[in-house]
């Protein structure tokens, strides 16, 4: 019998949810391990950098890498995996678009370090010690990875062959991707392995909305409970569905939460946030500039709402004008 293909899972700046989705395959995991050998999976197996360095190029067929990239250590790992594996899949929202960790791009590196190590109310650091890349403690030389100025998507660091979107990607789409890879039935390189339509197309509440409707004022799930049957936008809750790819299984919608955009923009959309913003203009009711301004002010935190998962990949990511924020 021919040797089974080998696959690697690696994580960078992530929460572990993407590993969870592999575990959530439940008995489906048996199908996967029957077909492939998992040779690297830091969350479950103890492997060191030198083990990966010893791989022959091409020996491991595919690397699934989740998490955004912010540390020099993560950079070294993903570059090594890229050099060893013929196929690299960006796994999950963070590797795909920056994800939640990329919201940190709203603040400078200095501001983040200062908040975390100096000013946070729970911090007691009278000597104002900040993490150092190299330090000497009790006669030992210690090293820490470099903390970059910004969070990057995986494809801002290495070439990526495919994207598996979602926070986390649904287990079924992981299984489908593994099967497609094994069968050699992959779409063109650079594809996002998800449907091309927007989420509204597959929304269970699609039929609840009128052809034309408008938003009088924005409402928030924090302060009121949406009707569980009706289109969120028609109720005034900001739902990212129109500017988001479908394929997630509508998990949030079934939980009575509006879409937050983790699958990223559908094809042909350069920037998820400005697209959603443009769409909202068509739904408003305001017919004077003052009313429009008042309505816009009702939307708290547009940056975090429109770019909750895609800040690192957005057009505005590099716009920061103020150095000290």
């Amino acid at each position, binding site marked *: 019998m021919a040797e089974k293909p080998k696959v690697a899972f690696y994580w960078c700046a992530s929460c572990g949810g993407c590993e969870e989705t592999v575990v959530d395959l439940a008995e489906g995991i048996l199908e996967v391990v029957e077909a492939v050998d998992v040779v690297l999976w830091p969350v479950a197996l103890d492997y060191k950098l030198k083990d990966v360095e010893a791989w022959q190029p091409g020996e491991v067929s595919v690397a699934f890498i989740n998490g955004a990239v912010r540390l020099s250590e993560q950079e070294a790992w993903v570059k090594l995996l890229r050099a060893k594996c013929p196929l690299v899949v960006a796994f999950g929202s963070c590797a795909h678009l920056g994800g939640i960790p990329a919201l940190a791009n*709203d603040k400078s590196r200095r501001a983040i370090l200062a908040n975390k190590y100096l000013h946070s109310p729970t911090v007691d650091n009278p000597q104002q010690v900040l993490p150092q890349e190299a330090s000497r403690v009790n006669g030992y030389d210690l090293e820490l990875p470099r903390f970059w100025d910004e969070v990057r998507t995986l494809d801002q660091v290495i070439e990526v062959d495919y994207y598996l979107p979602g926070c986390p990607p649904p287990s079924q789409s992981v299984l489908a991707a593994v099967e497609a890879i094994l069968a050699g039935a992959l779409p063109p390189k650079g594809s996002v392995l998800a449907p091309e339509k927007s989420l509204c197309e597959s929304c269970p509440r699609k039929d609840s909305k009128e052809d034309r409707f408008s938003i009088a004022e924005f409402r928030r799930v924090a302060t009121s409970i949406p009707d569980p049957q009706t289109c969120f936008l028609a109720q005034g809750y900001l739902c990212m569905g129109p500017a988001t790819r479908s394929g997630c299984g509508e998990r949030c919608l079934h939980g009575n939460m509006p879409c937050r955009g983790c699958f990223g923009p559908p094809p042909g959309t350069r920037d998820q946030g400005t697209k959603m*913003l*443009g769409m909202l203009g*068509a739904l408003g009711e305001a017919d004077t500039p003052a009313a429009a301004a008042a309505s816009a*002010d009702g939307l708290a935190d547009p940056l975090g709402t429109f770019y909750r998962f895609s800040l690192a990949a957005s057009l505005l990511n*590099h716009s920061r*004008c103020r150095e000290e924020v």
Partner: protein
Amino acid sequence: MTEERFEPRIAAFLCRWCSYTGADLAGTSRIEYPPNVVPIRVMCSGRVDPTFVVQALAAGADGVLVAGCHPGDCHYQSGNYKTMRRYPLLANLLEQFGIERERVRLEWISAAEGDRFAAVVRDLTEKVRALGPLHWKGAPPARYRTAPADREEVHAHG
């Protein structure tokens, strides 16, 4: 060496029916206004996807003007109302990214208001000049970079 005055670059999205014709009128009436605007003709101010505005800023514009028909006068009836609602949302968003809201302006300019077009351009140019160059932190993507060398220096903020 004397310090040269900062000349802002302003992208102007003008609706084909009112504002572009208004700009034409300013020209045929020989009304003088600063040469800092780059006019871009669109069918309707409602066609101006907020993405265009951000792309213009990323491509090196220091300010953006969006101009359309007066409310009630839209050739497509409601296009300018959509723009009216997008504008404050976009300004709020840009402000969160550290881009002053005064850099992006929405104006209603009819086909008969050549003088108004000139006045808007004069005012916006001076306001953006006072704000100074837009320091886009990262260099714009290579395909957008058309600025002469001296501008690169102005933008050289790592």
